[in-house]
C-alpha cells in the first residue's frame, strides 16, 4: 500500500495542530498584548490607586505605607478643591466648545465630502496633529498676546470693543487673551478638536441616508430630524469624542502653565506634588479624580441611553 498523502514536514504538523485547535493559536497571538494591557497598563493604575491610600509624614516628608483616607481628606481643602473645580469647569467648557465646533465639520465630511474633498478633510484634521504640541501652544501664546495678531486684527477692523468686552468679563477675562481663561479655552479647544471630529464623523458616516429620508418622509422638519434622529445616532461618537477632550483637558499640565493666569490645574498640581513637593500620595489622589469623574460621566451617559444606538 502506498501513502496517499506525502510525508508531513514540521511546518505542516504545526499548521495542522493550529487548525485542529484554533483556540491555541488565538491564545498565542493574544497573550503578549494582554500581558501588556494587564500588567503594565492596569498594573500601574492599581499602583497609583494604592499610592493614593498612603499618606505623607508631615515632619520627615517620608511616605507612610499604611492604609489611610487622610490624603483624600486633603483634597477637600479649599485650595485643592478649587483646583478640582477649576479643572472640571474648563474640561466641560472645552468639551462643549469642541462638540459645537466639530459637529458641522464632521457632518459635512460624513454626508457631503466625496473623493478629493474627503482627502482634504482628513488632511486638514490630521495636519495639526503632526506638528509638536509645544510648538502649537507657543504659537497660540503669540497669537493671543497683547501685541499679537488678534489684537492687531481687531485694531485694524475697529472691533477692539469686542475684544475688550470679552476681556472685561468677570472671572474668565483678564489683561490679554493669553493670560485669561478665554485664551486657555481657545488653545485647549484647538489642540483637542481633532479628537472630537474623528469619532463624530465615524458615527455620522454610519447613519444611512435612508434613515434621514424616512424621517422626512414621515413629516419631520429638518430641525426635528436633527433632534430626534441625527443627534441620537451620533451620540456614541459624541461621547467617544468627549471622553478624549474631557480627559485630555483634565490631565494636561502644559497649557495652563503657558497660557492663562497661572492658576493651578489638576495636571499641574500632580506635576508639582510629585516633583518638587515629593508628596506622591496626594499626587496620586489628584490623579484618581479624572478617572472617577470619567466613570461617573460614562455611567450617566449610559443611563441616559447614549449607547442605545450601538
Amino acid at each position, binding site marked *: 500500500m502506498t501513502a496517499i498523502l506525502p510525508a508531513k514536514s514540521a511546518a505542516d504538523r504545526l499548521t495542522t495542530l493550529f487548525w485542529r485547535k484554533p483556540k491555541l493559536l488565538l491564545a498565542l497571538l493574544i497573550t503578549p498584548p494582554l500581558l501588556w494591557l494587564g500588567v503594565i497598563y492596569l498594573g500601574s493604575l492599581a499602583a497609583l490607586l494604592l499610592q493614593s491610600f498612603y499618606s505623607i509624614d508631615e515632619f520627615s516628608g517620608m511616605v507612610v505605607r499604611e492604609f489611610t483616607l487622610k490624603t483624600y481628606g486633603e483634597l477637600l481643602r479649599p485650595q485643592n478643591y478649587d483646583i478640582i473645580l477649576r479643572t472640571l469647569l474648563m474640561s466641560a467648557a472645552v468639551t462643549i466648545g469642541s462638540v459645537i465646533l466639530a459637529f458641522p465639520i464632521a457632518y459635512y465630511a460624513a454626508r457631503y465630502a466625496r473623493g478629493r474633498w474627503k482627502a482634504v478633510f482628513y488632511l486638514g484634521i490630521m495636519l495639526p496633529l503632526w506638528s509638536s504640541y509645544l510648538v502649537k501652544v507657543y504659537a497660540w501664546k503669540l497669537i493671543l498676546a497683547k501685541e499679537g495678531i488678534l489684537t492687531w486684527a481687531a485694531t485694524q477692523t475697529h472691533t477692539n470693543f469686542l475684544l475688550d468686552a470679552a476681556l472685561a468679563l468677570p472671572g474668565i477675562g483678564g489683561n490679554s487673551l493669553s493670560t485669561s481663561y478665554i485664551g486657555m479655552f481657545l488653545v485647549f479647544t484647538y489642540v483637542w478638536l481633532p479628537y472630537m471630529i474623528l469619532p463624530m464623523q465615524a458615527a455620522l458616516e454610519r447613519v*444611512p441616508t*435612508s*434613515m434621514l*429620508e*424616512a*424621517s*422626512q*418622509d*414621515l*413629516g*419631520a*422638519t429638518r430641525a*426635528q430630524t436633527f433632534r*430626534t*434622529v441625527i443627534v*441620537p*445616532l451620533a451620540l456614541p461618537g459624541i461621547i467617544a469624542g468627549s471622553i478624549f477632550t474631557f480627559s485630555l483637558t483634565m490631565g494636561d499640565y502644559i497649557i495652563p502653565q503657558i497660557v492663562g493666569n497661572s492658576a493651578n490645574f489638576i495636571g499641574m498640581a500632580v506635576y508639582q506634588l510629585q516633583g518638587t513637593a515629593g508628596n506622591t500620595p496626594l499626587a496620586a489622589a489628584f490623579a484618581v479624580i479624572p478617572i472617577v469623574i470619567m466613570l461617573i460621566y460614562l455611567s450617566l451617559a449610559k443611563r441616559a*441611553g447614549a449607547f*442605545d*444606538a450601538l
Partner: protein
Amino acid sequence: MPAAVEFRSVSRHFGPASAPVKAVDGVDLTIAEGAFFAMLGPSGSGKTTCLRLISGFESPTAGEICIFGENVSNTPPHLRNVNTVFQDYALFPHMNVRDNVAYGLMVKGMGRAQRYAKAEEMLALVHLDAYGSRKPGQLSGGQRQRVALARALVNEPKVLLLDEPLGALDLKLREAMQDELKSLQQRLGITFVFVTHDQHEALSMADSLAVFNDGKIAQIGTPAQVYAQPKTRFVADFVGSSNVLPPALTQSLGGPAKWSSLRPESLHLDPAGPLQGTVTSLRYLGSGHRVAITTQGQDIAAILPSGTQLPEPGSEARLSFAPGALHIMDEA
C-alpha cells in the same frame, strides 16, 4: 375625480447636460385612486427614481407631477401626504417598535397617550401587537418589514410607496407577505405604488403595471394585457420570458412580416407541428419541464407539463401552438 398620481412628460436627468444619465425620461403616467400599481423593470431602469419623484426626494428636471390633482413638483417631502416603505426598512435603531411606528404622529405634535394608542392599532394591523417594546435589532427581517409598513401607514397617507419591500425576504415569507399586502391594500383602500423587478410579484399583485426600460415606460396596462399582448420585444422577453420571433419566422408560421411573441406554456410537442428543430436543452422545473429547440438559428422554449413523454437532447422535435397564441407586436 383626479388621479392619485399623475406624471406629465416627467424627466429626471443626472450629471452634466452634455452627457446626462437619463434615469427617467419623458414619462407619462396616471395612477388611479385606490389602485395597486406596480412598477416593473430591470435594474437601473428608473423605478426607484420614479418613486422618489413621487415622494419628493428627487425633483423633475422637466415635466410636472400631480398628486390628487395638485402640482407637487416644488413641494418638499415632509409636506406631501405620501409615505414610503424603504427597501432597507430604515427603522430608527435607537427607538423601540412603538416609538418607530408613532414617529410620524410625534413630529406632528400628537400627545403621547394618543399616538401610542394609534401605534398599537397599526401594530395590530400587521400582527405585531406584542412587539411594541422591542428594538428593531431584535426583530426578524419579516417583522421589520411589517414595522416599516405600520410606520408608513400611521399617517394615513393617500398614497403608499413601496420600494422592493419584499426583496430581502425568503420565498415562503415573500409569498405570505404578498397576500397580506394585497389584502391590506384592499381593506384600507389606499393607493399602493409598488416597485419590483420580480415579474411574478408584479403580475400577481397589481391591478395595473408599468414596465420600465431605460428610463422610459415600455408598456402600461393590466397584468393580463401586458402578459398576453406585449407591445415590444423587450416587454415580451422581460415579462414571462416569451419566445420572441423575428419577422421571417413569424411569416413562416403564417403571420405578417413583423416581430411576434409566443408564450412557452402555449407550446406543446406535436409530430405535425410547424416548428421543427434540434432539442438543445432540457430542464426540470418542478411543476413541469422546459424544453428548448433551435430552429432557423432561433431558440424556442416550451414548458411541458409533468408526465409528457420527453424528447432526447440532440434529437429532432416538433412543436405546435394553439391558434391565437402567436401575438404580433406593433414594433417594427
